[in-house]
């Protein structure tokens, strides 16, 4: 028996030695775990170029669409962990906190045009935005121009530029639907892709607009997670307005949307079957590369997403960033430096910049790009909208959405709403409840009610760190929140009343 144990130990040792030997060989490479599958091939070419110019090997692994978090989870636990990876906003930072190195001393940070875009905590910088993107309603101006030339059209609007509110958008869209045969389209909007996993344009991007206005009213800052442990979807009706418009004036019947994918929508737009589609500048490639594409590059334009909220006349596109690059502080100091050097090269050297502008199609937020402007039609439009003085940008507050589970639940509810099996009230309830569940907060009844449990958890979150709250909600949130509910409910309800009156002022639909 003794001998057996000894043998087992020996074998185990041998295995360990093997494992160490294999990881020791990777010291001179930078491991980048890439988030964007659409840029995978470009990054391979970048790696080649980087090797030519500096002799350093860049190893790029790309996670398949929608699987970044799980790939990162398994990769970062390995001895040969990624040195460079992406975090998705403050929520992503929360789960990768222990892996993010401070970037405030890096060269590339100094080139960042707007330092407030970074993910920071305690004066240290943990995530660098590497691309600014924008989305809105993309329209084909050839088709809309054809509409505006119709002698029998039913609206007074004379051009797309005139539209600056939901009411006008709705009138034009519905009239276009009425004339769809004359316009040669099957519907005004492309399919509202609600297949599970393909519904991010609705549960994330579209929801961004009402949530942004709610945050504005509640004076919430994205950098303070404790301030948005609950949302009430106070602008739910605005959300419904635009969603109804999308599904009722679409190429596809609302009941069949559950099997539609984003690629279907983009193809419909590219083939001229519809006039509009909600998406962002990253989708230009998807429009351009469709076989039999009928849309001219010069005809692809952006319109802001109007939803019927007072003050939206000055609203612009939704522009922001979701991807933040972080350097893994658990890899060797040498590797961390190599990763920072690579970033610097990519965004400041001549050949690096060329890749960023021409091949990745990024709108980079760094001052080294003062002379280079993006080239594709949609990115150009986004930077034009960014430069406009007369409109305000809707930032990407959706980075505060608590989790993929939350988004999936909302997407599923939207689908059921489209199919007519649940009411809009259910969608709203799902939104509010799932948000609270994923942040580990107790359920709020409604903004007006300011329920005991909802207010209690809010006040707890003021003083207690996030991680503690997580575990409390699992074990003893009952007892913990009980102690503070007395003192907190008063404060909460007064805050909520404030919000409510503000909503009354703002909402046109009472």
């Amino acid at each position, binding site marked *: 028996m003794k*001998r*057996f144990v000894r*043998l*087992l130990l020996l*074998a185990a040792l041998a*295995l360990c030695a093997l494992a160490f030997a294999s990881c020791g060989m990777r010291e001179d490479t930078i491991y980048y775990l890439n988030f964007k599958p659409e840029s995978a091939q470009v990054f391979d070419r970048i790696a080649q170029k980087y090797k030519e110019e500096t002799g350093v090997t860049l190893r790029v692994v790309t996670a398949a669409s929608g*699987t970044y*978090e*799980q790939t990162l*989870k*398994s990769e*970062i*636990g390995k001895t040969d962990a990624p040195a460079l990876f992406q975090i998705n906003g403050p*929520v992503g930072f*929360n*789960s*990768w906190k*222990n892996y993010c190195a401070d970037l405030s001393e890096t060269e590339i940070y100094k080139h960042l045009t707007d330092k407030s875009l970074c993910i920071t905590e305690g004066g240290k910088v943990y995530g660098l935005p590497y691309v600014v993107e924008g989305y809105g309603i993309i329209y084909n101006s050839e088709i809309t121009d054809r509409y505006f030339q119709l002698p029998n059209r039913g609206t007074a609007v004379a051009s797309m530029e005139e539209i600056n509110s939901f009411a006008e958008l709705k009138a034009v869209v519905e009239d276009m639907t009425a004339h769809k045969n004359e316009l040669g389209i099957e519907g005004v909007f492309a399919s509202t892709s609600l*297949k*599970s*996993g393909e519904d991010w344009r609705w549960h994330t991007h579209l929801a961004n607009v009402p949530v942004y206005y709610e945050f504005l009213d509640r004076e919430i800052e994205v950098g303070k997670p404790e301030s948005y442990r609950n949302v009430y979807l106070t602008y739910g009706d605005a959300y419904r307005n635009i969603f109804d418009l999308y599904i009722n004036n679409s190429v596809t*019947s609302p*009941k*069949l949307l*559950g*099997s539609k994918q984003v690629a279907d929508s983009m193809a419909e737009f590219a083939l001229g079957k519809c006039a509009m589609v909600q998406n962002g500048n990253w989708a230009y490639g998807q429009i351009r590369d469709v076989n039999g594409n009928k849309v001219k590059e010069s005809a692809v334009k952006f319109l802001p997403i109007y939803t019927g909220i007072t003050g939206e006349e000055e609203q612009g596109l939704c522009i922001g960033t979701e991807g933040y690059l972080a350097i893994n502080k658990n890899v060797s100091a040498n590797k961390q430096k190599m990763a920072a050097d690579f970033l610097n090269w990519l965004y400041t050297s001549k050949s690096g910049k060329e890749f960023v502008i021409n091949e990745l199609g990024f709108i980079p937020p760094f001052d080294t790009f003062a002379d280079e402007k993006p080239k594709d039609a949609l990115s150009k439009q986004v930077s034009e909208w960014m430069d406009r003085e007369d409109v305000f940008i809707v930032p990407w507050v959706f980075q505060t959405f*608590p*989790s*993929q*589970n939350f988004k*999936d*639940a909302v997407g*599923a*509810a939207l*689908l*059921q709403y489209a*199919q007519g*099996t649940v009411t809009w009230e259910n969608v709203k309830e799902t939104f509010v409840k799932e948000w609270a*569940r*994923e942040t580990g907060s107790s359920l709020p009844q409604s903004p007006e009610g300011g329920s005991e449990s909802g207010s209690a958890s809010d006040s707890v979150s003021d003083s207690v760190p996030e991680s503690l709250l*997580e*575990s409390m909600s*699992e*074990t003893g949130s009952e007892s913990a929140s009980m102690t503070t509910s007395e003192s907190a409910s008063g404060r909460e309800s007064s805050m909520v009343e404030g919000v409510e009156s503000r909503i009354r002022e703002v909402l046109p639909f009472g």
Partner: protein
Amino acid sequence: MGRSLKRYFPIFVLPLLLAFTVSFLIPFLAGVALSFTEFTTVTDARFVGLANYFEAFSAGGDFLNALLFTVSVTAVSVLVVNVAAFSLALLLSRSFRGNHFFRTVFFMPNLIGGIVLGYIWQLLINGVLAKFGVDITFRQAYGFWGIVLLTAWQLIGYMMIIYIAGLQNIPPELHEAASIDGANGRQMLRHVTFPMVAPSITICTFLTLTNVFKTFDQNYALTGGAPGKSTSMLALDIFQTFYGSVGKEGVGQAKAVIFFLILAVTAAVQQGIAGRKERGAI
């Protein structure tokens, strides 16, 4: 004898034991241990006791719903698959021209991967449902029967092969004797064929039970849990908990441990019952 066994033990058993330890025992134990912790990656975990287990059963009832749905799908599928597979086996174990060809045809679906099957069937089912202006995500029942149909289609061929092997192992003189004694077809099936293929029935029900219970890719590709999460089976629910939420990895792990326990107990009970029947038959 004993001495030489001991001496050669390392040579014969050790390689397998090592492989078993490294690829099964250690991950399994680590998995159980992780279910009592809060973790992001397996190397940094914080002990939280039974909290994950409580949350698995409380959080919105997803897990219980998924359990109920999985049990119903499994029950229906086990019945459908085995009845159909056995009937086909009876048919195709007769000797007629082309019976080998048909066996191959029925076995083929089993060779296609689950994800591909899921997408193909989604297209097929949606194609039919589109006539009524809806699709598979419209109602839970559509997803339920979709999964049952897909499972049946995939598993029937495989089970059929096992049943055919069992049928061919019955000595022909038993049937001959029975027919001389004046038994009719039904009586022969009930009193000769069934008892003689009892071992095959045990194997097939066990295989279908565990296979259907663990269904993931077919479920993922066919419905993805829609509408809502009402057609998520256990494996998909565990996956969604683990990867879909921030900081819920431990809960997902706890669900996986419960999943294992349920499956192990059910399979053991089923084996016990079937085993007794088999012995009774002989």
